[in-house]
């Protein structure tokens, strides 16, 4: 059966070998249900500079290297050539040489990027239609642009809205199919020739193991953090609240009231800084709480106010929690015991339970048990404890995400190396173009500089020499 049949449920029993990867019936698709995706949502709340850096990482590759290199060549090099204090060459020569750099940078970007981008597109296209092996095969989760092109080819006059809907639907359908394949321990990828092949068992088991290992590492690290950082820190802070209840209540209630009444939370930060100075000789824990408030962040005053309000509400809630109530801890030892018990019940025990379930799942993977058996075990564990930390953990979905990430990263690596090879091959052309363009550019734009230089200068000298000879003769 062809992979397209698996993906789109097409009956193609009599299908012939074909080069075109698929022509699915897009009209039969329905719009998928959209859930809140925190991965996408968080983007809207990140500082612009961090969003920019994420974009840099996502687009990292040979094109980026070429552009950074060219910026150095075109913008920085000329300055240091023209105004090099160590150079004994005359200024005209330096200016003439300096202009070679931007010309060289433009040519490098035009030729190298000009060739690298089509090659990158080729790699994407080949990955999407199954030309490569398993490591770079995207036939089960094709790119948006690839699906868009396929739909446009089938429906040339489709409206933009309809196209968007069909693309979203198609992508959701592919995701669903991939998860079903994982649930059946049978990942079948497509080739551009129309044939299909099954993902090797070793690779598949590796994927399963990696998902579980990452989850285990996270849980273990959280447990360590809880035991060694969070609990001691909470005990220290709670002890301050216990011994300085009135002082803490007064200071933080006052700050909270002032914050609630203003639209300029930065002024409250100034107030907290002032208070920190005034209380510099008091309990270090009080200063640490001031630092926590000062470290609150927001991309605009409204967000900053929300972040600071949340912190102050938390502080006042903690003061009540540790000092009020029916039977508040009376001594430091009581308080430490109270916090340890609380943390054990609400954090440590759930994390330990998560670790034990994950370890059991890992054991089942190593015993090559079926996905159905592993997921049934997970379901039973989670169902017996409604607040289990693995309630939202969907093993097959996680495997699907990891597979997609791995393929994406492999393609990124392959693209970077392809770009490097292409740039190297293009280099003689870039050099030749520079030698050809540069004198012409200088003659046209800076004739004053250009005329004095070789070969024009040589020509003048030769002419002069000829004139002298003529006079002599």
């Amino acid at each position, binding site marked *: 059966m062809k992979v397209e049949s698996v993906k789109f449920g097409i009956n193609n029993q009599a299908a012939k070998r074909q080069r075109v990867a698929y022509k699915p019936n897009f009209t039969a698709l329905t719009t998928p249900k959209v859930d809140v995706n925190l991965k996408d949502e968080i983007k809207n709340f990140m500082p612009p500079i961090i969003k920019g850096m994420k974009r840099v990482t996502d687009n990292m590759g040979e094109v980026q290297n070429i552009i950074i290199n060219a910026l*150095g060549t075109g913008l920085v090099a000329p300055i240091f050539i023209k105004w090099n204090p160590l150079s004994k060459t*005359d200024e005209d020569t330096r200016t003439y040489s300096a202009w070679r750099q931007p010309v060289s940078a433009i040519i490098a970007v035009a030729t190298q990027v000009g060739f690298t981008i089509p090659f990158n597109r080729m790699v994407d296209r080949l990955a999407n239609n199954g030309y490569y092996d398993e490591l770079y095969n995207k036939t089960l989760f094709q790119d948006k642009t690839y699906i868009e092109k396929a739909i446009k080819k089938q429906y040339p006059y489709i409206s933009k809205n309809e196209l968007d809907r069909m693309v979203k639907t198609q992508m959701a359908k592919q995701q669903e199919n991939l998860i079903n394949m994982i649930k059946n321990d049978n990942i079948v990828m497509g080739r551009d020739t129309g044939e299909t092949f099954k993902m090797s068992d070793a690779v598949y088991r590796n994927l399963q193991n990696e998902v579980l290992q990452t989850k285990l590492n996270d849980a273990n690290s959280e447990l360590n953090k809880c035991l060694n950082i969070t609990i001691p820190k909470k005990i220290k802070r709670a002890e301050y609240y216990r011994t300085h209840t009135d002082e803490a209540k007064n200071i933080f209630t006052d700050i909270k009231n002032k914050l609630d009444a203003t639209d300029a939370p930065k002024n409250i930060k100034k107030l907290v800084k002032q208070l920190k100075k005034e209380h510099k000789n008091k309990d270090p824990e009080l200063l640490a709480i001031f630092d926590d408030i000062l470290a609150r962040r927001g991309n605009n005053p409204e967000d900053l106010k929300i972040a600071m309000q949340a912190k102050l509400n938390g502080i006042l809630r903690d003061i009540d929690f540790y000092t009020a109530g029916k039977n508040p801890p009376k001594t430091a030892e009581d308080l430490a015991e109270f916090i340890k018990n609380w943390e054990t019940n609400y954090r440590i025990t759930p994390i330990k339970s998560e670790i034990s379930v994950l370890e059991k799942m890992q054991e089942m993977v190593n015993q090559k048990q079926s996905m159905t058996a592993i997921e049934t075990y997970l379901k039973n564990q989670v169902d017996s404890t409604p607040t289990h930390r693995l309630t939202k953990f969907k093993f097959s979905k996680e495997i699907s995400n990891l597979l997609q990430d791995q393929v994406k990263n492999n393609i990124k690596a392959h693209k970077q190396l392809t770009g490097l090879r292409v740039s190297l091959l293009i280099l003689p052309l870039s050099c030749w173009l520079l030698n050809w363009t540069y004198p012409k550019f200088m003659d046209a734009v800076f004739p004053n500089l250009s005329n004095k230089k070789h070969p024009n200068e040589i020509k003048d000298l030769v002419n002069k020499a000829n004139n002298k000879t003529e006079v002599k003769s």
Partner: protein
Amino acid sequence: MSMISPVGNKIKSINRWFSRLPYVQNTVCKKFQDTRANSAWIAGLGVTSIVLKDGFGCYLYVNQSLNNKEIPEDKRKFVAALDLANGGLMILLQILMTYTISKKVFQEKMFNKLFGKKFNRQASKSMQAIMESKEHLAGKVKGNQEFHKAFANYKDSAITALGTLTTLIAATTVGKRILTPFIATPLADKTKEWMCRNDKPAKIHKDTKNTYDTHTSASEKAEQQAAANKLNIVK
């Protein structure tokens, strides 16, 4: 990319052959799976790419200069020496800058100084509070591991981007374009001496003898001469 079929097929199959190389599959692809842990390696790959191109470019330029009949023979070796000194220095300084800037200790310090406040516990708590205050996200963020994963993902990306950008800029801009020009010219004299160690003394043709005045540019001289001619001053 539309290509004539046989050429296109050949390019595609060469490209696939490269993708199957054990080094690519077992080393390069693996390094790209964890860009945060391997940010120095990835930045190094970027610099290697530029160094390789510089090396090849240097070879082409030196070769071109040595065989360029339009350059006077007595100056040809100096021009080539300048190209060689330039190329060699560029490569050396880029490697040196990469190995200093991309060091983990240095990168960590720089990251904490520049962006640490944007990713500490309070920054994470702030973002959770802000997101929770939005109607469509209320009750879905606090304590959700998806949030922590996404937040950590942004931190990893920022670390990788900083590592890659600083390494590339240090290598290609500071090393190659600021330090190299300062050292290249004096070094070119030494390189020329080395290239000419077995040469017989070159005869300088009277017509191609360097007539540049290092203090007054040729254009200024011409202007002075023109002014002098106008005033009928005989030099």
